[in-house]
């Protein structure tokens, strides 16, 4: 079965320190990869995506993610965390299909990022 794993329910980091939120996937082929963020009482906001090309993808708010095909991972990173980065982060994959098949996203369970001042 196709799945996405976010092994950490919560990540704690001090403001100014680098952060990593982990994501691995089990999807056949070469899927498209996404990160979304949900702030309290808000909807999902798109952060970044990997389609093809350079394995390091840069996105909104200083976030970046590195695609590693051999490890089937797509970890989210930021060099210096801010308190305002505290939110729920979701990794998602979209199986690369052909012939007009659906573009549905398969999500992980989410990782709560808590940045302490």
């Amino acid at each position: 079965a196709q799945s996405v794993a976010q092994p950490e329910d919560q990540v704690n980091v001090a403001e100014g320190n680098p952060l990593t939120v982990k994501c691995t996937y089990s999807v056949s082929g070469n899927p498209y990869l996404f990160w979304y963020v949900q702030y309290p009482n808000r909807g999902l906001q798109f952060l970044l995506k990997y389609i093809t090309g350079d394995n390091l993808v840069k996105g909104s708010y200083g976030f970046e993610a590195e695609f590693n095909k051999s490890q089937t991972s797509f970890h989210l990173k930021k060099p210096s965390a801010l308190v305002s980065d505290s939110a729920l982060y979701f990794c998602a994959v979209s199986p690369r299909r052909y012939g007009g098949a659906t573009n549905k996203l398969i999500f992980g369970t989410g990782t709560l990022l808590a940045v302490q001042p």
Partner: protein
Amino acid sequence: EAGVTQFPSHSVIEKGQTVTLRCDPISGHDNLYWYRRVMGKEIKFLLHFVKESKQDESGMPNNRFLAERTGGTYSTLKVQPAELEDSGVYFCASSQGLPTDTQYFGPGTRLTVL
């Protein structure tokens, strides 16, 4: 440009009642998706419209759920009759035509079935 909007933001109903959720996608987006997050779990795909046609409804839990997208604009998701396990947050998303296009999500509707 307005984003994806959903109505209502919250709904509390009793088991056996009917609820209808509405989603207005970003103007010009042919693709419309419904997802659901049950408490603490992953966000799960329900179905996908391309314009007014259902492209994939493989995620719909059962026949108590009915989704429509009349005229290829807004969409409704009706739950009839609602059960306790239907509680959760229902998200709508829309995108343009390519498989690589980003899906933009609405704020969600939090449904509580008592």
